[in-house]
């Protein structure tokens, strides 16, 4: 579909042409940033400049930024690396609405003998800070709560959660992959030990991420080798990717307010247009949500057909959870919010970006309404 309208920005964002331009000189690279010669030094300088930009986006110092091979790797490094660095403690607390990168890493800990407590959420996907406080124990090695959920866009009270953990001396990790570039992130105001970021969710290239590691926090590496990234992530850096991430971070910082305002307008138009269709309901909190996230349950229809139908009409949207849509498994996030399996299978995610327009939203709503009607006519479970 040549003229397709892209409304799946939570899955990945299109590469910003200005970012591509910044990357191009580095795609024909010669230098390894660890080499002593001039070419190596130039590559080194480029990634250090990117490090400054990424650090600036979240109010950190460059020394606190470790580049990784993506958001998932950053989450894995935090969850495994923090818990392994605190000695004999064998208790971990995570929320029920973590991205799979944190959820599966905590399961890995569980299988090697850790006790994992999963904190529930309310029907809007939000965590109660008091529940976290009650779950912490003297042997808690780590607590992890996502900054903003990738499915329903629920924005957690991370400042309060991080404060609670800091008060008890428990390392706190937050996955800010969806939040960065959309919400103001300042590690001066949020006492997190580690924060995971990803480049391709803010118009940078895929395959690059970063972990913010607060100065003084003990972290064990999970990748071993030449000792790059202060020994926390060995392996020659992805120079062009990191440069792209840096450029994307600079743009995100400069344009954050404008993007956020624009996305919110589109989001709210989508919400009011879509929920006007009978039997279509908004999931998550009406206000405490990412500025670009719309998550809907469509009664009587399964999401997959809806997504493919819209796709055939030129609109790319996501089903319930992009990661879960490969297999017939209900989203754990929606189940944690108290939904049934059927409801969970009827969920679609529409996430706008800076390039979308009001006109596209209107066109989409028209197509969406038609798709819902046609699939409901096909459904033996929906009384028309």
């Amino acid at each position, binding site marked *: 579909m040549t003229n397709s309208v892209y409304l799946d920005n939570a899955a990945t964002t299109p590469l910003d042409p200005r970012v591509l331009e910044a990357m191009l000189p580095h795609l024909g690279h010669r230098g390894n940033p660890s080499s002593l010669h001039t070419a190596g030094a130039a590559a080194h300088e480029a990634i250090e400049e990117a490090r400054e930009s990424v650090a600036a986006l979240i109010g950190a110092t460059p020394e606190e930024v470790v580049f990784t091979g993506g958001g998932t790797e950053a989450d894995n490094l935090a969850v495994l690396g923090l818990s392994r660095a605190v000695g004999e403690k064998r208790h971990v607390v995570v929320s029920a609405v973590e991205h799979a990168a944190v959820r599966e890493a905590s399961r890995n800990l569980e299988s090697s003998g850790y006790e994992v407590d999963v904190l529930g959420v309310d029907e809007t996907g939000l965590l109660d800070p008091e529940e976290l406080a009650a779950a912490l124990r003297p042997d808690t090695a780590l607590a992890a709560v996502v900054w903003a959920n990738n499915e329903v866009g629920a924005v957690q009270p991370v400042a309060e959660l991080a404060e609670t953990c800091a008060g008890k001396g428990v390392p706190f990790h937050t996955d800010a992959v969806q939040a960065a570039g959309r919400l103001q992130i300042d590690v001066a105001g949020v006492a997190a030990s580690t924060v995971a970021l990803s480049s391709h969710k803010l118009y940078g290239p895929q395959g690059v991420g970063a972990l913010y590691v607060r100065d003084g926090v003990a972290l064990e590496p999970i990748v071993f080798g030449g000792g790059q990234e202060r020994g926390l992530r060995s392996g020659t850096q992805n120079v062009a990717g990191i440069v792209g991430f840096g450029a994307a971070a600079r743009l995100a910082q400069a344009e954050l307010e404008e993007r956020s305002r624009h996305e919110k307008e589109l989001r709210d138009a989508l919400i009011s247009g879509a929920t006007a269709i009978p039997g279509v309901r908004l999931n998550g909190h009406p206000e405490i949500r990412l500025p670009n996230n719309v998550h809907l349950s469509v009664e*009587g*229809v*399964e999401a*997959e*057909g809806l997504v*493919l*139908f819209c*796709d*055939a*009409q030129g609109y790319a949207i996501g089903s319930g959870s992009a990661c879960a849509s*490969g*297999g*017939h498994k209900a989203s754990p996030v929606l189940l944690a919010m108290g939904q*049934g*399996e*059927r409801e969970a299978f009827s969920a679609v995610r529409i996430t706008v970006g800076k390039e979308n327009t009001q006109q596209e939203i209107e066109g989409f709503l028209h197509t969406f309404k038609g798709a819902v009607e*046609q*699939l409901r*006519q*096909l*459904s*033996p*479970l*929906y009384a028309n």
Partner: protein
Amino acid sequence: MAYTPQVIDHLVRPRNAGEISEPDGVGESGHAACGDVARFTVNISDNVIREVRYKVYGCAACIAAGSALAELANDQTLLNAARISRSDLEDALGGPLPAGKEHALTLVLDAMHKSFEDYWTSHAEALLSGSFEEASAESGKSVVAAMSGGVDSAVTALLLKDAGYDVVAVTFRLHDGEKGSRSCCSPDTVLFARDTAHRMGLPHFTLNLKELFNQRVMQDFVGSYAAGQTPNPCVACNAHVKFHAAAFLADRLGFRHVATGHYARVAEGPSLARPEDSTKDQTYVLWPVPQELLGRTVFPLGEYEKTEVRRIAEDRGLAVAYTPESQDICFIPDGDYRGFVRKNVVPEPGEILDKDGSVLGRHAGVVDFTVGQRRGIGISAPTPLYVTEVRPQSGQVVVGRKKDLEVREVRVGGLNWFLDPSEASSVQVRYNGAPTPCRIEEDGDAWIAHLEDPAVGVAPGQSAVFYTADGDRVVGGGVVERQGS
């Protein structure tokens, strides 16, 4: 995971979507509680599908498969529609579905087949009420073959096809079974049998005989036990259900023959004869098949050894769902038939007597006892005790020594003769027993068999089957009646 353009096309431009308002048949498959649901409605006349409509709730694969199937089946003869296989459907959808989506094919096929099943049910009033009479059968080399999902019936259909017959496979839905259980006729087995038939390129139908089977076989089974008899449910099924149902379908389709995977032969007369493989001989349970039905029956396995049948299945790549052990009762897969009977009748405690009428103890219900039984009597004695008689009226169970079980006379009622009774020269009274030489004499509605040697453990309710002097042919059979009744 990526779908073919055909899947997307069926999704966006569905064919034959919707529902017929007053259909000849409705079928639904899947579970509404969670997961996919497909509903087919059909109009059928003169064995041609005049109209087909579908509705699907589920993933894109299910929706597209529904559309593709409805398009394939529309305007087809019923036989051609019943032949559409998973692989035909896959071809119509432009190739294999992504991994994990293959169930879509089974779902929509099952829904359409259930609409056919519903159509047959609404035309089978006489069959289902037990008053079925055959229509004048057509000529020609055409056969309806009963297929249970097991190796015997699968090979039966294959041999008939090889022999040049037009074959239609039919599976009978007899009882609810247990999902996942490997007993025949359970819901999973229907799917399996259908797939097996389709792999051979045969049309497949399912007939819902649950009500008939419940009345004529399961209730009869429970009632017989409660009446102190030892019923044989396979005999009851052959007498009232299986052959009649196959003949019903044959008549509706204009087919001549019916076939099952029994090990037996049809000899001239027509009469019933023992099969090639004497260890699998099933003539003992086939005696009640009415002679007119036997006359149009084919038993291809009568010419084969079981080991050959297994080898044919292996050589020809037939997967088989289960391997029936003939003594299992299909609707009691766990083998606990006492438990089954107890679920259906309230047992009443009573006395245990010896043959002189002295009370030896008490029991919890006559349903727990059958003539010849040694275990579970609950009375200790210097020599082993056997149940020699069950008296349901008085709730009494009579026990005695092994010698007390011996009889020289067996009274047989409810007879079905294939040959002249005078040809009877031996009688078999147990499934795995050997025939005992006998002389028979008519006695009112029943016949008395005078045995040359005493027989042990002849239980009322069991079958007594008479064989010719050469031991090869069944003269007729009936049911052992209570002594003195």
